[in-house]
């Protein structure tokens, strides 16, 4: 039988899982059946269209917006002075938290310590960490905190903000490395109430590899939380978030 006459499998729209974080917020597929009620008659359901980069960026953008909104709320709650005094150690922990959080309110934020770098370079699996030893007494291994991420690449991102209002800015990078060229298209009010801040210029210093994002806040821009996503130019994948709080 000639090959053209053979019945073949269809060409599938998608052949791999969509584990992107934004995928978790897809609406349920129309016509999803319940266990005891098999699908109604009709055409087989097609899978939802896989995200093209534009959708991916938009999805991530929306998601990160939401996270930032929640994060801001939680952060505000956390950062309020503790009125009840609490037990001393609580204060200590919160103080550490506050001190770290306070670092974020600077005009520029230099990123990428070992935590913001990629994961440690993988040593070849060696068959595990040794045989199970029932009853062996626990000896604390060195914590991961002090571990230097092997192969970590440092990159630097500076954000300069020109604003007539008092502001705080937070930047977080996801897996960016030296040489990652990112752009920030706009900052959008978390509650959608204000105009976009889109006067943003990204410049790379060719000698140091540093990227500087210059954000100019228009006069009259209302106080709000503005969020934006840093997108890698080459892959169009999200590489970080910027959150600007105008007070």
């Amino acid at each position, binding site marked *: *039988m000639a090959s053209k006459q053979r019945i073949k*499998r269809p060409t599938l729209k998608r052949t791999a899982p969509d584990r992107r974080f934004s995928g978790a917020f897809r609406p349920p597929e129309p016509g999803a059946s319940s266990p005891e009620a098999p699908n109604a008659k009709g055409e087989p359901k097609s899978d939802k269209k896989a995200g093209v980069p534009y959708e991916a960026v938009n999805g991530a953008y929306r998601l990160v917006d939401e996270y930032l909104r929640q994060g801001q709320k939680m952060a505000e709650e956390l950062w309020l002075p503790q009125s009840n005094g609490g037990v001393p150690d609580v204060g200590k*922990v919160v103080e550490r938290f506050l001190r770290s959080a306070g670092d974020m309110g600077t005009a520029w934020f230099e990123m990428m310590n070992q935590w913001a770098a990629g994961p*440690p370079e993988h040593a070849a699996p060696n068959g595990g960490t040794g*045989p199970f030893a*029932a009853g062996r007494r626990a000896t604390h291994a060195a914590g991961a905190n002090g571990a230097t991420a092997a192969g970590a690449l440092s990159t630097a991102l500076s954000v300069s903000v020109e604003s007539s209002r008092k502001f705080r800015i937070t930047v977080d990078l996801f897996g960016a490395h030296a040489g990652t060229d990112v752009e920030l298209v706009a900052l959008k009010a978390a509650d959608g109430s204000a105009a976009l801040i889109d006067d943003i210029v990204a410049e790379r210093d060719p000698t140091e590899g540093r990227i500087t994002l210059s954000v100019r806040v228009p006069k009259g821009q209302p106080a709000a939380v503005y969020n934006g996503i840093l997108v890698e130019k080459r892959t169009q994948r999200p590489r970080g*978030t910027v959150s600007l709080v105008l007070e």
Partner: protein
Amino acid sequence: MTAAFELTQPALGGRYDVTIYQMGFRLGGKGASGRGEHGRIEEHGLHLWMGYYENAFRLMRECYAELGRDPRRSPIAKWSDAFVPANFNAVADYSPDGRWLSWLVDFPPSPGSPGDPEPRRWTIPDYLARAAGLLRTLIRTVQVRTQTTEPASAEQTGGASTPPLTTDALTTALGRLLKYGALAGLGVALEATSVLEGALRVAPALPQSLIARFLDALDDVLRRQLGALIEQDDSVRRLWEVIDLLLAVIRGSIRFRLALDPRGFDALDAYDSREWLKMNGASEGSINSAFIRALYDLAFAYEGGDTDRPRIAAGSALRGAMRAFFTYRGAFFWKMTAGMGDVVFAPLYEVLLRRGVRFEFFHKLTHVGLGAPSGEPHVARLEFDVQARVRGGKPYEPLVDVAGLPCWPSRPDFAQLEDGERLERETWDFESQWDRRRAATRALRVGKDFDVVVLAVGGAVVPYVCGELVQRDERWRDMVEHVATVPTQAFQLWMNTDMRALGWTHPPVNLSGYVEPFDTWADMTHVAPREAWRTAPRAIAYFCNVLRDAPDAPTRQAGARTEVNARVETETAALFVAEQYRQVRDHAVLFLNRDITAFWPAAVADSKFRWDVLVPGAAKARARAGESAFDGQFWVANVRPSDRYTQALPGTTKYRLSPLDGTYDNLTIAGDWTNSSLNMGCVEAAVMSGRLAAHAISESPALAEIVGYDHP
């Protein structure tokens, strides 16, 4: 079976004619079970269904709904008759003072049932927040644990048995902690976990370094404050081990930036799970703890069956653990109320038969032949050994009735087979790729006998039947080389005394993490009514574990098949299998004499197992006393290629091929050895894979309906 079920869904309007070619006399592969003497259930091993097996339960719920058995006539008419919750579990814990303790955990029932519509889609931040929530619960439990003056017995620990956290209880606990000087620290820890839980829910929006530093502060407090308690109380030690592991998981997830990694947990699959936990701060004690041992046992995660080589891909293990602990519905485990063959494969067989699916039993696939290399890659030919012919050319009737339930027998019905007496006398092994005896051969050609193929053999069978694919296609070669399988061993006991009289005073349990040669035990007394004893046994117990790979195991023969070669190979393999069975028997006897006493103290007298508690099985064993009484029980060495268990070794996920892979335009694959996105050896992975295979052919079910396919 899942692929057949999906392709013949009524919604597809009969678009596909499906024929299933099955080696031997029963369906199910490693999941097959049979009925032996007295209608007793004989399994390949212990099969527990986890409460997150959404696809598998959905399949069975649809199957039972369509089957429509009459509850007045059938003991298992509905899916809820077939599966019962099993929340009571235990982990065998070796205490520092050299005693084996049972760490009992009664998982709280959770809302809903597996297979209910629209399960929640989880994200990694969700999981991390849940992990922090669990952390808080455990710290609270430590506080409550320390109320007691004396170190409490292990049996008081865990879940539902934890005393309620009333104000008084907490006040007393705090007083107790003051005595240990631990009040401030644990108070901080509790507060801190609340903060952490909130932070992890919004992890992507917060600087990772901030969370990491916060986590380290919490870790520091806990280590300082719990150190003294761990030494004094086994329960606190166990809780600390879990806390330590949770901290490592959270820390590692932050470090590896899992929340935004498009690979999800797969990003960790190059690492062994314990190696990754240790890398992220877990202590040596914790990675060797009973809790971790139990998880490795559950996944038969010992390379080559060697218990000194525990290995499982960290991402797959973490995904499985997160789903198991945080997404289960109804119950953590579900137990089948009869054999897996009876509960799963007989109903599927009956439904598929009704839908017009044809079954060709005694067809052993021997070769998948490809089209000409110059043309479009496709399967052109399928070759089978016809192991036996059915008398009169009729369809083989595979099921038998046991106590009103359609069941698979443990042996074929030779009376239906041509020359059946001879085949029985010569002990033809119809379920072994190594038994090369046959009644005839059969070849199917594309376009004439089939259009599209779902290759659904066991993972270890692939090298035997896909030589051409392996030779031509590097990806298939890699898959065969890297995706490992392992032999397993199991035995079952039927006893004439109940568990309490044997010394187990707790409810029926599933216990893991015990010694070799059998690390897992499940009380299966509840299946007794489904068997056909004149006097029902008062206790039934199943045991299982990996079995070490034998260096002299038969391998695939590359040479031409001649009658002489085939006979020699068959006989050599039969000797090998018999020897493996003998070893499993020896392991079981050793285990009963030496090890069972930790949990069944009254079953042992004078350092020997009380063989008289066993219900005689086979007639030949009835008159036997002492250790020979074991010969009336059931044991199995799962060494044949189709019986081997698929593992998830570190670094191997990338070699799995997906049922959606379109390289061969009329071929898809199904089984827990494929890339199903879950990538563990379990029924859920097999069902997901089957659904993917159906999607590859019909685009149904939609990928979004395959629960967990897009799971991180």
